[in-house]
Each structure stands twice: as structure tokens, then as C-alpha cells.
């Protein structure tokens, strides 16, 4: 069997094996899942630096099962596999003994087969096959959560599934225009239908990444789904895949111009996503939900960075993607550790856990500093690159990004303060540090955030630049400390402002959780917050209402048609029958009348024909 097929097939086979292990055998499925993910990591690590191409016949009509391994996807494969391995290790421990752990672990493995397939595919339909297949595990992984999780699972399925369908049509359009479905051979102009094809494929890509307006299932899933799900999919894998594909379509398939409408559109989507999502994150009172809004907000930086279509922005966007996958999944894992030990993620009931869970707290601090863009952690460097690109394209995008950073820092100050500092709640007096199986993944990821920050040349020069190729970055290196000191100064000002804001809020309300209440309570803003919390602005809810209305109209059309068949036709038949019956009443006069009318008609006919 070909090595690329093994990489797809092995995780799926392991997943199916886990499903078939009898429920009473303890420990075996955990071991099997960890081994499966380890094997996956080892396999994809051997890919680094290789170019492999494989084509197998498939469904015909240009749809073949073709794969291409090269520098770009091999680095994403490794990132995904490494995070996946650590999160599986964590899940096997944190879920041990739970009824759904068998299902969940199996779904992780199956998802990885699909992720590997989607990343390796060169044929767009092969890619879509794996990419859209992830809907099944997405649905299943959320649905195993609590009793109402299936509603969230349905919401996630519908949002992502509809976007995948849109992308399917986009692929059909692009394939029709370029005459091939092979990504490495495609070249689609952005004119006419090509523009529509790009838009549709972009919707598929950014919806996978969780960008606005396709985001609203993520905060719901934070509450309903098992926590490792959040760390794995919305935290890491979906960003990697969505941004990978966005880069591929923007640079390879459509070759966007810097000042095209598509570029501006992407930047706008990115900027709005950054700001709106972070403002929602700011006021959350639940550890997991707060993180979930950041999972959305951070996508904005990546979409903005790639949308700039400047070399520095693209490199920054990709670097941010990899950084975010690390710190965001680690942040979710700290949330999971807190949930497991304290039994809740409600910030009202937390506080003072820092001393009880020092290692978790330390990991939280490192990753929170990373996401807030504090030097020398990795998030700082990627954000600076994105700022640089954004500023090149327009001040407004830069300001949106920087303002986003202010709120990001403010909300993490609040979160850290509320959960780990302050007074220990009496209910949490028995809380202890999480198990080592859970801590090791967190420590490793947190350490990589430091390494990727200090030695940022490693990911940028060794991985991202080779992946993009010389044509994109022109041989220019973006590693090292940011060259543009004005940008750095701006960042420092913003971070200090966030700290001052925090101190002000804490002083005013007397507790960490209240640190941003003064922003929350701004007149007007508080009204918007209130409505947003109730789901008034949720595109999914709005869409549901619109679809409902459309369905009612369509269905009444159907009723009208049915009325025609069931009533009008029946009435017409009855009436005709009645009229004809009345004409046959046996009266001579009636028959004479008939004969007269017929004679007149014949005469008229004859006169006309003569």
C-alpha cells in the first residue's frame, strides 16, 4: 500500500478498531488511540522535505484520487499530528471512565484520517470528500456531550455543511473554467464567474476556520461538547485546514492581486471578525465560552493577514495560524484541567486556583501572554507581521487589529485574574493539580510557544517560507525582532493600556471578574451585548427565520397547486358532467335546439371555407 494511503487509512482503521472493542475492556482503547496517534505523528514526520505525488482512478469526469505531498502541506500535517497526539494523550486521561470516551477517542482517530486526506489531496473533489466527511465526526463529537448537545451538533453541521455545499458549487465553477480539478494545475482568472468561484470557495475555507459570520456554533459547542473537542477542532485542526485552503486558493488557484476586491473583502471579514468576536469574548463569564470567542477572533488575524496579499501579511497570517493552534489548544486544555478538578468553568465559582494548580496556571500565563501578543512569545511576532501587512494596505485595518489586541489582552487579564488569582472559593478548597497525562501536553505546547517566539526564524525561515516559495516572499526574511519600531511601540502602548484598564476595573468593582464591567455597561453597548447574548444577532438564528418564511411561502405555493388538482379539477369534472346530463333531459325541445345550433355551426363553417 502506498505510504500516502497508509497515512489516511491507518488512523481511520484504528478508529474503527476502537469502536469495535467491547465496552468492558478497560484501558485498551486509550492505549490504542495514543499508539495510533503516535504512529500518525511518526509517519507524517518522515514526510518532511519530501515531494510525493500519487494518482489513482476514481469517479471519472476529472475526479481522480490524486494526492500531492510538498513542503506546504507537510508542515501543516506535522503540526496537526503533533497537536493531535498531545490532545489525545490528554483526552485519554481526562475522559477516562466516562461513558462516551470510547466513541470520542475513535472519532479523533477517524477525524485524523480525514484531515490527512484533505491536506494531502491535490484533486479538489478528493479534498472535498475528506474535508466534508469531517462533518460526520464534527457532528458526532459534539453530540456525545451533554443531553442537549445534539442541538449544537446540528447547528454546527448545518452551518459548516451549507458552507461546504457552497464550496462544492465553487469548485464546480472553478473546474469548469479551468478544465481541470487538480489544484496544482489550476489557474482561474478572477473575472466573471471566476470571481464567484473564488467567493464560494473562500466561504468554504473561512467557515471551516470559524470566521464570522459562520462562527456561531463555536461558543455553543464550548458549553455542550466535551472539552478536548474544543482544543482539537475549533482550537487547532479547523484553523489549520481552513487557513491552509484559503492560502491555496488565494495564491495557487486564483493568484489574487493585491488591490483586488477579493483582497479587500478578506481583510474586511478579518477585521470585523477580530473586533466583534473579541468584544463578545470580553464580557463572557465562563472560562470555555470566553476562550471560544477568542478562537473566532484569532481567525480574523489570519484572514486579515492573508487578505492583505502582501508578502509580510501572508507570512504573518500563516505564522499566526500555527501559533494560534498551539496557544489556543493549550488554553482550552487548561480550561479542561480546571473543569475536571473544580467541577465547573463558571468564573463566578472559580478564583484563587493559581496556588492549587501551579503548573496549569503557569501554562495559562505563557499561552495567555502569547495570545495577547506580548514579547517574546510567539503570538507577538506573528501579530506584528500581520500589523505590518495591514498597515501597508490601509490604516483602518491596522487600527482594527490593534484594537482587537487591546481587548484580547484585557479579556485574558480578566480571565486569569478571575480563575487563578483572588480569593479561593470555599467549594474549591480540595482542588488539586491535574494529572501528569493532562499536564504534559499542556507543558509541551506552552514550551513550544516560547521556542517559536524566541527562535521565530525556525518556523518562519525553515517552514513557512519554503512552503510559500520564492515567488511570494521574494527571498525576503521576516524572522527576528520586528524591524518596524513604530509598530512595536504601538503594541507596547496597547498592552500597557490594557493593563491599566484592568487595574481600573478591578479597583472599581473589587474583583477580577468585574475588570471589564465598565466597558460592558457603556450605554448602548450594554443593550447590544444583551441582545447578542440572547442570540438576536446570531446569523444562524436569522437564517432560520428567513428559511422558515421562505418555506412557508413555497409550501403555500404547493398547497395552491394541490388545491387545483384536488378541488378545481374535480369541480370542473363534476360541473361538466352536470351540464351534459342536463342537456340529455329527454325533452324534444332540447334536442331540436341542439340540431339547430349544429346546423348554424355547419353553415358558418361552410361559408367560411368557401
Amino acid at each position, binding site marked *: 500500500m502506498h505510504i500516502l494511503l497508509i497515512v489516511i487509512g491507518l488512523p481511520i482503521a484504528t478508529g474503527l478498531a476502537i469502536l469495535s472493542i467491547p465496552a468492558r475492556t478497560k484501558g485498551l482503547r486509550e492505549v490504542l488511540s495514543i499508539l495510533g496517534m503516535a504512529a500518525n505523528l511518526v509517519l507524517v514526520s518522515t514526510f518532511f522535505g519530501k515531494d510525493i505525488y500519487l494518482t489513482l482512478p476514481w469517479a471519472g469526469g*476529472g475526479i481522480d484520487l490524486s494526492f500531492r505531498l510538498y513542503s506546504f502541506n507537510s508542515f501543516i500535517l506535522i503540526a496537526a499530528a503533533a497537536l493531535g497526539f498531545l490532545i489525545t494523550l490528554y483526552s485519554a486521561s481526562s475522559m477516562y471512565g466516562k461513558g462516551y470516551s470510547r466513541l470520542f477517542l475513535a472519532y479523533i482517530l477517524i477525524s485524523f484520517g480525514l484531515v490527512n486526506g484533505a491536506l494531502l489531496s491535490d484533486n479538489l473533489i478528493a479534498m472535498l470528500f475528506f474535508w466534508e*466527511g469531517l462533518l460526520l465526526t464534527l457532528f458526532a463529537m459534539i453530540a456525545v456531550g451533554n443531553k442537549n448537545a445534539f442541538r449544537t451538533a446540528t447547528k454546527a*453541521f448545518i452551518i459548516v*455543511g451549507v458552507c461546504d455545499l457552497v464550496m462544492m458549487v465553487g469548485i464546480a465553477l472553478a473546474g*469548469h473554467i479551468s478544465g481541470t480539478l487538480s489544484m496544482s494545475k489550476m489557474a482561474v482568472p478572477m473575472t466573471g464567474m471566476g470571481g464567484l468561484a473564488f467567493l464560494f470557495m473562500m466561504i468554504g475555507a473561512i467557515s471551516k476556520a470559524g470566521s464570522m459570520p459562520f462562527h456561531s456554533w463555536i461558543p455553543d459547542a464550548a458549553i455542550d461538547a466535551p472539552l478536548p473537542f474544543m482544543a482539537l477542532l475549533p482550537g487547532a485542526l479547523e484553523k489549520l485546514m481552513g487557513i491552509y485552503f484559503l492560502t491555496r486558493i488565494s495564491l495557487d488557484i486564483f493568484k489574487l492581486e493585491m488591490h483586488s476586491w477579493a483582497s479587500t473583502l478578506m481583510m474586511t471579514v478579518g477585521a470585523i471578525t477580530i473586533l466583534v468576536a473579541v468584544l463578545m469574548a470580553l464580557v463572557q463569564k465562563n472560562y470555555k465560552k470566553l476562550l471560544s470567542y477568542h478562537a473566532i477572533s484569532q481567525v480574523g488575524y489570519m484572514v486579515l493577514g492573508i487578505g492583505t496579499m502582501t508578502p509580510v501579511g501572508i507570512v504573518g497570517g500563516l505564522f499566526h495560524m500555527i501559533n494560534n493552534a498551539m496557544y489556543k489548544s493549550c488554553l482550552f486544555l487548561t480550561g479542561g484541567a480546571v473543569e475536571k478538578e473544580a467541577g465547573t468553568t463558571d468564573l463566578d465559582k472559580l478564583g484563587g486556583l493559581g496556588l492549587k494548580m501551579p503548573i496549569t496556571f503557569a501554562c495559562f500565563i505563557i499561552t495567555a501572554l502569547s495570545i495577547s501578543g506580548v514579547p517574546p512569545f510567539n503570538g507577538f511576532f506573528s501579530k506584528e507581521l500581520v500589523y505590518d501587512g495591514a498597515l501597508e494596505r490601509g490604516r483602518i485595518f491596522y487600527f482594527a487589529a490593534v484594537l482587537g489586541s487591546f481587548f484580547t489582552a484585557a479579556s485574558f487579564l480578566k480571565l486569569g485574574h478571575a480563575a487563578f488569582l483572588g480569593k479561593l472559593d470555599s467549594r474549591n478548597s480540595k482542588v488539586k493539580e491535574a494529572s501528569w497525562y493532562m499536564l504534559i501536553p499542556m507543558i509541551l505546547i506552552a514550551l513550544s510557544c516560547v521556542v517559536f517566539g524566541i527562535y521565530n526564524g525556525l518556523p518562519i525561515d525553515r517552514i513557512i517560507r519554503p512552503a510559500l516559495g520564492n515567488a511570494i516572499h521574494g527571498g525576503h526574511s521576516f524572522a527576528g525582532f520586528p524591524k518596524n519600531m513604530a509598530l512595536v511601540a504601538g503594541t507596547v502602548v496597547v498592552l500597557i493600556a490594557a493593563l491599566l484598564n484592568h487595574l481600573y476595573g478591578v479597583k472599581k468593582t473589587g474583583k477580577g471578574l468585574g475588570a471589564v464591567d465598565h466597558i460592558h455597561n457603556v450605554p448602548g453597548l450594554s443593550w447590544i451585548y444583551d441582545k447578542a447574548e440572547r442570540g438576536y444577532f446570531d446569523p444562524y438564528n436569522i437564517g432560520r427565520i428567513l428559511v*422558515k418564511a421562505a418555506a412557508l*411561502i413555497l409550501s403555500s405555493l404547493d398547497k395552491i*397547486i394541490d388545491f387545483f388538482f384536488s378541488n378545481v379539477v374535480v369541480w370542473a369534472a363534476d360541473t361538466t358532467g352536470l351540464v351534459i346530463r342536463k342537456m340529455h333531459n329527454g325533452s324534444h325541445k332540447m334536442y331540436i335546439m341542439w340540431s339547430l345550433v349544429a346546423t348554424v355551426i355547419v353553415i358558418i363553417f361552410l361559408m367560411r371555407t368557401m
Partner: protein
Amino acid sequence: MTNKILLLSCVFIPLAGAIIAPLAGYISTKFRNALALAAISASFIAAASLIPVVLAGNTITVSANLPLGFNFILTADCLAVFMATVSSFICAIIVLYSFGYISHYRNQNEYYLMVVLFLGSMMGLVFSANLIFLYIFWEITAIASWRLIGFFREKRDILRADKAFLVTVFGALAMLLAFVLIYQKVGSFDLAAIKLYFKTTPVPDIAVILILLGILTKSATLPFHTWLPDAGVAPSPVTALLHAAVLVKIGVYVFARLFIVTFTPSEIWHTIIPALAAASALVSAGAALVETDLKRIIAYSTVSQIGFIFLGFAVNNTIGIAGAMLFILMHGLAKGGLFLCAGIVEQNTKTKDITRMGGLISTMPITALSFLACSFSIMGIPPFGGFFSKYMVFSGAVGGGNIYITLAFLSGAVLTILYLFRLFNMVFLGESRGNLAKEGSATMIVSVAVLATMSLAGGIYIIYPSSFVAVAVKQMVGM
């Protein structure tokens, strides 16, 4: 010679079986059931063993010359064999399921007679290469469906059966007029002669309209579709049969046979038919989102999906045609599965109202999972088979060049996801709002599980059906 016997047995074993089965019912019900299944399975095996023959590029013809162009001709080409194999396979599963479902009702002899006759006439129809015999078999299916829809003898059921019969026969008579019209021009009902004649002469639009009336009524397309949801009063295996295996697929089959293989209607129809199909797909999808009757929802879903098949056939490019053929296969498997699952749910909960169901996944897990798998296939989610057929139809539509029609179908596909999820959640998930009924009988569960598995296998092993379809399409468009 053996091929000719195979072809004849495809058609005549079920026709003969239809007569013998009810007689056997007077001896033993088990014997009758076995006989009915054997007749249909034999037809399936015969059709399936023709696959390698037609794949090699051969067509098999059996003919008996009759005067006045009424020659009785059966021809097996790729399209016919494909259709026959799909229909008879699904029909065999449905008959297996019927053993459990129908066993508590009266008039079982009539039931098996009509089901086997239904398949036999369907087989006759797909292999007929003569318009008159095509018409005759077409009308036999109408009679069989009329009796089957009215299987329960309530007044409402009889009225609904009459409605189905009257609408489809109205269409068939219009189609017959078109056949006469064509006969006047060509002087023969022989499809080969007709094909030859219309190579140089355009087909009169009036004939196209009249044939379309027949096709659209049979395939339940807007504005002639409302009899199909109403036919949901029939026993569930019958509805499965109508939707998945035989009845509504007749229309699309004849569409392919006449409008693609035999002659090409003028350019304007490549826009009118997709537009009509789009309207049909949207209106019925909207209705499916509003209805609360389990079987009516699935029935509207059929109307909606038939629109996709018409779209694929009507856009006049190879990938669209291939997509439409795969769609027939995938939709048949999945829709058959959905109706059979619905039958289990309906029979055990004693209701069809989805607002009085819920939480059934806990008591009928296999039915629920099969239902979900079939729904995924209809939504077009990989790795289920429906994914490929949906993509190919979209690809064909894009190639057809009309972006508005493509977007209308995209909305239709979105609505498909919505109504199927609504249905699944209302029936199987959440809190129970009625009684938590038990799982169906063994044969019933096996039947739905087989169809669900086939829907999955259809996607994973897409290479087999798609390579067959590729050959078929080449033959159909005469490349």
C-alpha cells in the same frame, strides 16, 4: 443466445411470477413470499449478469416482428441494464422487508401480485425499444400503483389512489398522443427507426411538450407532483417502491431514453426543463420543511431530488448525465432506506405525526443509524454515495452555463440538509413526546441496514458504479 434468454427472463420471470404468486398464496403464505422474492431476485440476477456483456460494448436485442410498426423489441444497452439492475435490487430488498411489514394485513395475495407485476412491467418498460410497448408497460405500472396505493381500503386511501392514477394516466395519454404524432412522421414506433429519422429533422415541440406531460406526471414534478405526497397513505414498503425503485424513476428513465438517446429536443428545452426542475426542487423542499407527517416529508424530498436528476439529464453534457444516472442509484438506495425506516417507526409508534415522536434512537438504534446514513447520502455528505452524484449534477449544471439555475439548486440542496435534519432530530433525538416504541422485526432491520450500508459502500467504492456509468454515457450520447 444465453444473453437473449437472460434478457427475456428479466422481463418475463416477474410477469409470470406475478400470476403464480397469488395462486401460491392459497397453498402457503411462506411459499408465496418466497416465490415473490425469488421472481424478483431472478430478475435482478439476470439483469446483473448482463452488466459485463453491455460493458463490453454489446447490445442485446430480442424482437418479434408484428405488422404496422408494432414490432415487439427488447433491447439491453448500458442505460437499460443499469436501470433494471438498480430497480430490481431495491425491489428485492423491499419485498424482503414486506415479509415482516405486511404480515398483519389483509389482501396479501393481491399485494404480492401487484408488487411483482410492478417490477415486471418496469423491466418491460426499460428494455422496450418500441414506443407502443413502452406505453403498454407504462400503463401496467399505473394500474399496479393504483391498487397498491389503495391497499388499505379506507375511503381516503381509495381517493388518494384514484388521484395518483388519474394524474399519471392523464399524462400517459398526452404522451400517447405524442407517440402517434411521431408515428405519423416516422411511420414506425421502433426507437431505432425514430432515432434515424430525427437525426436530420428536428423534433416537433408539440411532441416534446406532450411527452414531457407524461414524464412529469409520472416522476411527480411540479406542477404535477402533489399526488406523490398524498400516496403516502400506502403501506410503507409500497411508498418505498414508488419512490426508490420503480414508479417515479420511470419518468426520468424515459426522459433519458427519449430525449438523450433517441433524439435531442431543441435548444430552448435545455433551459426550460432545468428551470422547471429547479422550481420543483425548491417548492417541494419548502413544503418538506413545513409538513409534520413523517412520510409526506420524505415524499416531498423525493420530488425535490427528482429535480436534481432532471437537471443532470437536461443540461446536455456528459458529466451531468453521468451525475443523473448515479443520482438514480444513490437516491434509490437512500430513499428506499428512508421509507423502510419510516415504516418501522410508523408501524411501531402507530403514528406518522413527527411532533408526537422523539428520542427513538434509544429504543431503535439500528433504524435510527440507518435513517441517518440514508439522510447523509441524500444530503450529499461524503463518504456516502450521494456526494458524488450531487457534485456531478452541479458540475453539469455549471457546464450548462446558467448560473441562476445552479444557484436555485444550491438553495434546494441547502434546504435538503435542513429538512432532513429537522426530521431526524424530531423523530429520533431529544425528549420523547409519544411512546418509545421498540425496534422492528429482524427482516425489517436487516433490510434497512443493507440499504444504509449500500449507500455508504456506493460512496467508498464509487469507482465501480462510476466506471459503468461512464461507459453508459458514452453509449447514450453516441461517442
